[in-house]
């Protein structure tokens, strides 16, 4: 008996549609978020992450309704990220049916926000998303604004600080790897997973099922997040789990 490693399909949603880009550009349409979420729920996904990449106010309103629609039909944990800047944004998403929210730029801008959020809503629903790039051997830096803006913050130190502030989980995306299907950056995944006591979700770069296994075994991730391998029918969630189970990874079948 052991805790299962989680498989988390990720929905990047722009104005009410699931999209997927390569290194944050070159966007493809991947369907209606509610239908996509229901499909993954039926396939036995362990959680669903919904990242709102909409920039407009109208798009945000749509997002709240989409989260409500997903939450009334999907009975596994749902994380919502993108544009979470204030405590009221968290309250809105939790009320819409999200179980957790993912905080990214707002934490970089004002780290105390994570502490306040964890105190108000509990660590269990506060995920801190870290987008980083490799800047040197064994060194990774946080980037914001879709990877355009370096912050000078060391990713491993940042993860430790966020855990200390009450984050319940880290969603770690390697921006060098995102969408290029070469596998996770195992170095930073392992460095952060070993540095913090909270769970780490590896994200960015999954191109085949072995990459998921590597994220858990080599990267020591507690969960693996992927988008395009599931969206475009290359693999189903059950296929991914069977493959991982055969490699000795504990999964929920």
């Amino acid at each position, binding site marked *: 008996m052991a805790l*299962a490693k989680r498989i988390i399909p990720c929905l990047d949603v722009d104005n009410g549609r699931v999209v997927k880009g390569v290194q944050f550009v070159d966007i493809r349409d991947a369907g209606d978020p509610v239908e996509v979420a229901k499909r993954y729920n039926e396939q036995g996904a362990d959680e669903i992450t919904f990242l709102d990449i909409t920039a407009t106010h109208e798009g945000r309103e749509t997002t709240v309704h989409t989260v409500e629609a997903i*939450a009334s039909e999907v009975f596994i944990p749902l994380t919502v990220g993108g544009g979470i800047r204030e405590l009221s944004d968290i309250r809105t998403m939790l009320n819409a049916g999200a179980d957790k929210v993912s905080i990214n730029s707002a934490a970089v801008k004002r780290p105390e926000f994570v502490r306040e959020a964890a105190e108000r809503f509990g660590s269990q629903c506060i995920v801190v998303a870290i987008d980083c790039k490799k800047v040197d051997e064994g060194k990774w830096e946080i980037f914001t604004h879709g990877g355009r803006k370096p912050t000078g913050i060391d990713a491993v130190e940042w993860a430790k600080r966020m855990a200390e502030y009450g984050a319940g989980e880290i969603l770690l995306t390697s921006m060098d790897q995102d969408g290029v299907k070469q596998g996770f950056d195992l170095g930073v995944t392992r460095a952060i997973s070993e540095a913090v006591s909270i769970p780490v979700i590896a994200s960015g770069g999954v191109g085949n099922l072995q990459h998921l296994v590597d994220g858990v075994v080599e990267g020591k991730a507690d969960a693996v997040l992927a988008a395009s391998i599931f969206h475009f029918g290359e693999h189903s969630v059950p296929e991914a789990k069977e493959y991982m189970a055969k490699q000795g990874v504990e999964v929920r079948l």
Partner: protein
Amino acid sequence: MSTIAIIDYGMGNLHSVASAFEHVCDSKVIVTSDVAEIEAADRVVFPGVGAIRDCMAEIRRLGMDDVVKKAVAEKPVLAICVGMQALMEHSEENGGVDCIGLLPGKVRFFGEALKDEAGEKLKVPHMGWNQVKQMDHPLWDGIEDNSRFYFVHSFYVKADRVDEVKATCHYGLDFDVAISHGNLFAVQFHPEKSHTAGLQLLKNFASWDGQA
């Protein structure tokens, strides 16, 4: 039509508990802190997330400790996660908090040094899908033993009355994840987030007469 009242004391996402019940049964589901509504309901759900000190403060401020105790004496009650922990005598969280004390036993921290059998360090919170070992109870009807349920917690329950323990789980150590006490069934995991197995448990509760 029967009514399920989900007690709202301002802590957590009750929407998902309500919508999961609506998905599996025909009962009317209400989310409420109104004592009269809770007393009039056929079944009561006592949920909870977050830190125990804040939860207990709100429970006491709204008088929900007495409301829950009265409900347990009269009709089926399902406690979930921190709702279960709040029913124990005492929790180690937040430097030590006295709880409702309906169930003898304590709530303890998993600890920073939690390790698995191979000596690997285990993350805290215990977050994700873990296997639940059942003991005989009608709420497990139609759910395979050792099914996985979704957990998220850093503190665990050890009940004093072993005969009331209806399920255990293992994460570095063994702990109690379901307790029955007359009309009460309390669980540490989140059935509303546990897909098929969780929905079956909620369905069982919606038709359970209590007093196992």
